[in-house]
C-alpha cells in the first residue's frame, strides 16, 4: 500500500494543482481554452473518484472519450449473445455487460427468463466451466481493449492445449489508436490533447501514439490512474500546449515501455487479425477491431453457430453516442439522472463501471465542478 500512498500524497497534489493553475492562467492570458480528452474509462472514474475536475482552472476542460469497452459495444452484439443463450449456450461474461441494453432486451432479463448467463472475474472461469459440462456449449463474451485482449486470447491457448471443443468467443475487441484517429478527423469535435490510457499503453507501447501526435499536432501524455498521475499528466499537457508542442510524453514509465509488451502483442497477432468494427455512436471504423483468424474459426461463436452480429437499434432518446465522442456532457443529456440512472439505465454509459454517465452520476458535484457544455 505504501506504493499507492506515494501517488496519493495530498501535499504533492496541492503543488501540482498550483502549477496547473499557473499554466491555466498563462493560457487564459492568451485567450486559450484547452480541451483534454481522457480516453480511458478508468481515467474517467479516477477523475470522479478523486474530485479532480474541480481542481482544474476554468479554461482547462476534461472531456471523457470512448475508452469504456462496454459503452462502445453495439446493441447488435448483445442481441447475438442473447440469441446464443436462447439456443442453450452458457454465456460467461464480466459483470458490467449484464445490464447493457441490446436492441430489445439485456442479459439480466435473459437470465431472469431462464437463460444461462454467468458472471466471472477471470476469463479462465470459462474454460473451467466448459470442462465441467462437456455436452454443452460455453460462449465467453470477449469484449475489451488491448489490455483485456491478451488474457482473453490466452483462453484459446488453454482450450487448444486441453482439447476443450465446446468453448467459443463472441468477439467485440477494439483497438484504441484507430478510434483516436477517427475522433481527430471529425471536424465537430474539438480535442487539443489526449490523456492517454495507462494499461492499454502498457500493451501497445508509447510509440503507438507518435503518428497521432505528429499528424494532428496534439500532445499525447500517458498517465497512470492515481490522482497524482492524473494531475501530473494534465500539468504535462498544459506545458506542451503553452509551448505549442505536440509530443508523446510517457509519464507512466513505471509500467509503460516505448515498445509496449512484445509478448502480448505477439499473442494477439497470432490469434487475431484487424477487422472493421462498429463503435456505438461512432459507426464503423476501419481496422479498429480484432477478430479471430480463419484458422481459429472453431473458437469464433459467430462462425461456429452461424449467428453473425448485425447492427442493433438504440433507444431513441439516448445520447450515449455523443457522450462517447466527447460531444456532449452526460449532464446535458435530457435523460441523465431523470429517466436514465444506474438503477434503470437507458444507455451503456450509465451501466458500465467505467461509463462516463455512471462516473458523473456517481461522483460529480455539478455545481462545483468545471463542467462546461462539452466541445
Amino acid at each position: 500500500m505504501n506504493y499507492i500512498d506515494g501517488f496519493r500524497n495530498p501535499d504533492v497534489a496541492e503543488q501540482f494543482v498550483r502549477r496547473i493553475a499557473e499554466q491555466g492562467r498563462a493560457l487564459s492570458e492568451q485567450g486559450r481554452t484547452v480541451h483534454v480528452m481522457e480516453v480511458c474509462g478508468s481515467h474517467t472514474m479516477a477523475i470522479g473518484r478523486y474530485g479532480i475536475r474541480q481542481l482544474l482552472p476554468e479554461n482547462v476542460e476534461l472531456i471523457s472519450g470512448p475508452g469504456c469497452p462496454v459503452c462502445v459495444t453495439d446493441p447488435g452484439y448483445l442481441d447475438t449473445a442473447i440469441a446464443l443463450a436462447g439456443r442453450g449456450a452458457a454465456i460467461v461474461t464480466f459483470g458490467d455487460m449484464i445490464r447493457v441494453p441490446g436492441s430489445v432486451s439485456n442479459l439480466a432479463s435473459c437470465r431472469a427468463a431462464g437463460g444461462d448467463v454467468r458472471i466471472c472475474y477471470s476469463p479462465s472461469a470459462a474454460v473451467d466451466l466448459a470442462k465441467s459440462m462437456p455436452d454443452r456449449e460455453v460462449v465467453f463474451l470477449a469484449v475489451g481493449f488491448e489490455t483485456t485482449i491478451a488474457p482473453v486470447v490466452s483462453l484459446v491457448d488453454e482450450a487448444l492445449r486441453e482439447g476443450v471443443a465446446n468453448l467459443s468467443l463472441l468477439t467485440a475487441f477494439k483497438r484504441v489508436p484507430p478510434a483516436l484517429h477517427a475522433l481527430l478527423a471529425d471536424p465537430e469535435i474539438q480535442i487539443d490533447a489526449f490523456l492517454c490510457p495507462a494499461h492499454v499503453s502498457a500493451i501497445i507501447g508509447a510509440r503507438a501514439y507518435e503518428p497521432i501526435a505528429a499528424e494532428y499536432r496534439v500532445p499525447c501524455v500517458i498517465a497512470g490512474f492515481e490522482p497524482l498521475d492524473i494531475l501530473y499528466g494534465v500539468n504535462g499537457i498544459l506545458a506542451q500546449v503553452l509551448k505549442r508542442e505536440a509530443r508523446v510524453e510517457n509519464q507512466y514509465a513505471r509500467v509503460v515501455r516505448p515498445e509496449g509488451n512484445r509478448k502480448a502483442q505477439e499473442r494477439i497477432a497470432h490469434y487475431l487479425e484487424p477487422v472493421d468494427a462498429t463503435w456505438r455512436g461512432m459507426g464503423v471504423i476501419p481496422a479498429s477491431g480484432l477478430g479471430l483468424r480463419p484458422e481459429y474459426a472453431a473458437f469464433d461463436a459467430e462462425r461456429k453457430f452461424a449467428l453473425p452480429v448485425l447492427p442493433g437499434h438504440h433507444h431513441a432518446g439516448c445520447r450515449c453516442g455523443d457522450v462517447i465522442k466527447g460531444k456532449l456532457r452526460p449532464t446535458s443529456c435530457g435523460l441523465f439522472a431523470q429517466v436514465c440512472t444506474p438503477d434503470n439505465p437507458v444507455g451503456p454509459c450509465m451501466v458500465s463501471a467505467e461509463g462516463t454517465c455512471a462516473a458523473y452520476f456517481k461522483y460529480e458535484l455539478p455545481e462545483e465542478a468545471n463542467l462546461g457544455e462539452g466541445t
Partner: protein
Amino acid sequence: MSADTVIQLAHGGGGRLTRELIENMIVPRFGSGPLSGLPDGATLPSPGDRLVFTTDSFVVQPLDFPGGCIGDLAVHGTVNDLSVCGGEPKWLSLALIIEEGLPLTVLGRVLDAVRAAADDCGVTVATGDTKVVARGQGDGLYINTAGIGRAMPEFTLGMERIREGDCVLISGTLADHGMAVLAARQSIDFINGPQSDTGPVHRLVSAVRGLGASVRFMRDPTRGGAATVLNEMVEGRAFGILLKERDLPLAPATRAVSEMLGIDPLHAASEGRLILICAPDVAPEILNRWRALPEGAGAVCLGTVSHDKGRVILETLAGGRRLVDVPRGELLPRIC
C-alpha cells in the same frame, strides 16, 4: 455417506432422524431454559414496558470466512439490529434451513458458534426450527434469527434528531466483513487477507447510556456499507455529511483488497461496527468510552454533519470533493 455423517432429507421429515438431529445437535447446546422439553413455543417473562423486535436471514457464502462463520454472524446480525434501536438483547429464535448433504460436523461447528456468540451477547436461544431441503435447493445452510430486546428508556433515537454540526462516529475500521467474504471466495485467493469484523455492538451501545439527547441516532453499517447508512440519514434533509478520505479508518489488508478489486470500502459491509451521530460536545467522551472496550479500540470520528443538503460528500486525498453514492448493481457476492 450415512446418516451419521451428513444431513439427509429424512432429517427434515419429522420422523426418527428428525428427532435424532434435534436431540443430538440442538438439545445439548440450547436445551436448557425456554427450550427445555422442546415446547412448540417459548413462554417468556416480560422484560419491560416496551420491546424491540427484529428478524434477519443469513445466506452468506462461504459458510466459513476469515474471522467468523454463518453461525456467529446470525447471532451478531440480529443482536446488533436490536442494539442500534436502543434495545437490550434478550432472546433469539433460530431457524435452520439445511441442504441435504451438509456434513454434520459443519452443522455442529456452526451451532457451536451460535452458542458461543449468544453467550457473549447475553442472549438466550428461546425457540427454533429445522428444515431440510433437497440437494441443489440451498447453499449448504441458511439461518434465520429473530430477536427480542428490552427497549432501554434512556435512548430517544431518530434520524430527525440529527443537527448540522453533529459528529459522525464509527467504532472501528470499515468494510472488513465485506472484503473478507469476497477474499474468501474460491476464485480470489488472498494470503494474509482481511478478517471479518463480525461481532456484537451491544456493549458499545450500553457504553453510551446516560448521555441523554446528545446521542441522536445509531446504525450498524451492514449491507451497502457506511455509504448506504449515511445516505439514508441525509436523504431529503436540509443537511448532509462530510467525510475526509484521509480520516477513513481502514485495516491494511482490507484496503489492499478493496484497491485490487476496485470496490469502494464505503460500499462494503461491516458486521460488528456501530455508526453513531452525536452532538459535538459528547463526541470525545463517547470515543473514550468506546476505546476502553476491545470492540471499540479503533473508534474514530468519521466526519461531520454539514450544510451539504441531502448529500454525503468525501473530501479526497487529492483535495477535491466528490459525491459518495450508494452502491448499485449485483457484482458483490452474498455477504450476510
